């Protein structure tokens, strides 16, 4: 599968999947956000989820976290945006409510400065790391 387009895309898609450890969405080349609730609660309550590899986000397509997308992911270690070519809007700060305090958001080196000062991402700047400097948790 390389494309997802629809009104609700990943709305509630993995919500409450407490055995889910890793999700790789990096092969999705098209992920259109048609409706504003496309990524609401996508991983909410996935208490075992550690790593999420996201799409090649561009200004026209990609995974755009919104209302509580990762809320309650208490084991979260990595949100990988390393293939992004633009910074997605982080519409809500509740996206990362009640997550692991040490999780990392990995971004391309050339977008690091832009990412850490973008709206709402700036309040998570301590979690954002350049892909060249990221060391996976052992």
């Amino acid at each position, binding site marked *: 599968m390389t494309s997802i387009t629809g009104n609700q895309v990943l709305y509630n898609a993995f*919500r*409450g999947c*407490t055995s889910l450890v890793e999700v790789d969405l990096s092969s999705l080349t098209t992920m259109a956000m048609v409706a*504003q*609730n496309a990524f*609401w*609660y996508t991983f*909410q*309550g996935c*208490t075992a989820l550690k790593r999420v590899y996201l799409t090649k986000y561009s*200004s026209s397509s990609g995974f755009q976290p919104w*209302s*509580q997308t990762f*809320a*309650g992911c208490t084991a979260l270690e990595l949100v990988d945006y390393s293939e992004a070519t*633009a*910074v*997605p*809007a982080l*519409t*809500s*700060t*509740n996206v990362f*409510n*009640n997550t692991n305090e040490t999780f990392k958001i990995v971004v391309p080196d050339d977008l690091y400065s832009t990412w850490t*000062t*973008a*709206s*709402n991402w*700036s*309040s998570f700047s301590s979690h954002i790391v350049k892909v060249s400097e990221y060391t996976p948790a052992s």
Partner: protein
Amino acid sequence: MIIQENVGNDLVKTYSDRRVLIKGGFPEGYYDEAYDPISANRTYVETDIPIPPEQDGE
């Protein structure tokens, strides 16, 4: 009305007192509320879109 508050760590919080989404920021988009570096001087306008109610976690 758009409200802006300094919240420390050189960040300013922007939100609507009508509980509607605000539009603007960087990247330009819709936001429930927005935290920005004070030095960025970002601006927002209110929309007529209500902020969605939060649901409880699992």
